[in-house]
């Protein structure tokens, strides 16, 4: 048997998966850039149209606004849950953890469907409120930004809780005890001693939620009813309604770049390695 260098043997284990990923994933995604400057004709007209379009601008602003609101809401709600599970839960900890994980494992499609059932014009919330006489007209709870936001927060919340839980598990209780022993109030010990230690987890969770929200399609498309067009839905709309692949590709390139810029900026404050490579 010919002698094969050790390193090469290890690469032979890596190559199959890596080759599949590069040929069938990385290449097609990079190729979108090519589509954006060749369809329907060679040139940068798709980008000119895109930057001139008011609808595109509105959609991008909307996308960033919804992603930002979702992130902030998930961080606040998620912090409360993560803090309780880590520090106060005691015997009910497995139950609470289970209640966070249950929605995480139910598909996004099913969860969006559940919100449609609840928030629709003749959905359960409206029916309930009308039956009890609190309102006489059905409220508009979906097909608007409110509905999209409620369902987005619901879908993204576990993504915020899990990194914060991992982070809080590593925090020793002795710091808080020391602060309390030195006379700090419970609130002050939390604010000045505990909270700063949890910031890495908060940042991780926030970045995860923000990046996933930027490109989110299923929930905004179902709950928005065509009236809340985030950029992902705008892309499919251009392709399905107008077969406008060039513009769809140009928008995809910009969305991809926006995601990359967010990650680049975040890399200064967040440990990307623990956020993405060493999740859970």
């Amino acid at each position: 048997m010919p002698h094969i260098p050790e390193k090469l043997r290890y690469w032979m284990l890596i190559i199959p998966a890596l080759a599949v990923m590069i040929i069938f994933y990385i290449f097609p995604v990079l190729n979108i850039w090519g589509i954006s400057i060749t369809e329907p004709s060679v040139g940068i007209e798709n980008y000119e149209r895109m930057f001139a379009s008011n609808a595109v601008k509105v959609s991008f602003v909307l996308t960033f606004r919804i992603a930002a609101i979702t992130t902030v809401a998930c961080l606040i709600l998620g912090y409360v849950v993560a803090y309780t599970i880590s520090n106060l839960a005691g015997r009910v900890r497995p139950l609470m953890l289970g209640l966070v994980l249950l929605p995480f494992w139910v598909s996004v499609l099913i969860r969006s469907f559940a919100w449609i059932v609840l928030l629709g014009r003749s959905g359960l919330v409206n029916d309930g409120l009308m039956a009890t006489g609190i309102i006489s007209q059905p409220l508009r709870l979906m097909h608007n930004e409110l509905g999209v936001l409620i369902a987005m927060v619901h879908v993204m919340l576990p993504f915020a809780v899990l990194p914060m839980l991992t982070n809080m598990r590593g925090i020793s209780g002795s710091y808080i005890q020391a602060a309390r022993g030195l006379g700090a109030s419970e609130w002050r010990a939390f604010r000045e001693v505990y909270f700063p230690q949890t910031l890495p987890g908060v940042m991780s969770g926030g970045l995860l939620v923000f990046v996933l929200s930027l490109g989110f399609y299923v929930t905004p498309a179902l709950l928005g009813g065509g009236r809340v067009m985030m950029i992902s839905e705008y892309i499919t709309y251009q392709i399905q309604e107008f077969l406008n692949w060039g513009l769809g590709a140009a928008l995809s390139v910009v969305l991809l770049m926006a995601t990359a810029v967010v990650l680049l900026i975040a890399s200064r404050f967040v440990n990307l390695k623990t956020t993405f490579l060493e999740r859970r």
Partner: protein
Amino acid sequence: MTPSALRIFFGTGSWIILAFLVLPILVVIPVSLTDTSFIGLPKDHLSLQHYDTFVHSTKWLFASWTSIWIGCVVAVVATGLGTLFCIGVWFLSDRAAMIVRWIMIVPILVPPVVQSLGFYKFWVTLGLIDSYLGVILAHVLLGLPYVTISVFASLSNMDRRLPLAARNLGASIGMTIRTVIIPAIRPGMISGGIFAFIVSFDEIVSVLFLTVRRVETLPKMIWEGIQESVDPVIAVVASIFVLITLIATSLAALRRS
């Protein structure tokens, strides 16, 4: 010690938030038992009529079966490729290895619509549109990041000296992998495989781009059902999903405690 304001705030707050997380999902169960022909709570009595429709609908059953077997193939292929990849990377442990690990998780970061657009154009040239192979290939790519993350987590927990000892005692790389590494990282491989199965089983965006009429998966049927008319059969499918998840998470929680 009496509970302080801070404790009361966090305690009650998290029960309310957990209710917000879980109750909306459970709502599909009473709706699936409705005796009406539209989505809503049961009017006069509970009825299994929509479950009956589901189990007698060849379309729904066929789509369920399609999703299950595609998910299994994806889990096996992604776990196989991903495990070999991780072992190679773990042996190397150099800068290049770090870079290829990042390449492997790119699908987590790219928006679903963007990657599906890329798939579509390439799959057209390959002639894979509306084929099972096309969907399986896309799902393997989307499942690989999760497999590599969980297999690598297992590898990092393994004692580095074990495979080195095997090598020094004369075992080949293949033998070391088979007899030392694989048994040690089996939990990571299993959870990676389950992850890949679930990613494939739930995946909708690339299926919408890559299939026309021949390939029907369960998420696609649900998606089309929601778009057209909101048929209570969707609530049945949703309830089955939720119940399975409920049982699985309870079992996992029991095993942990």
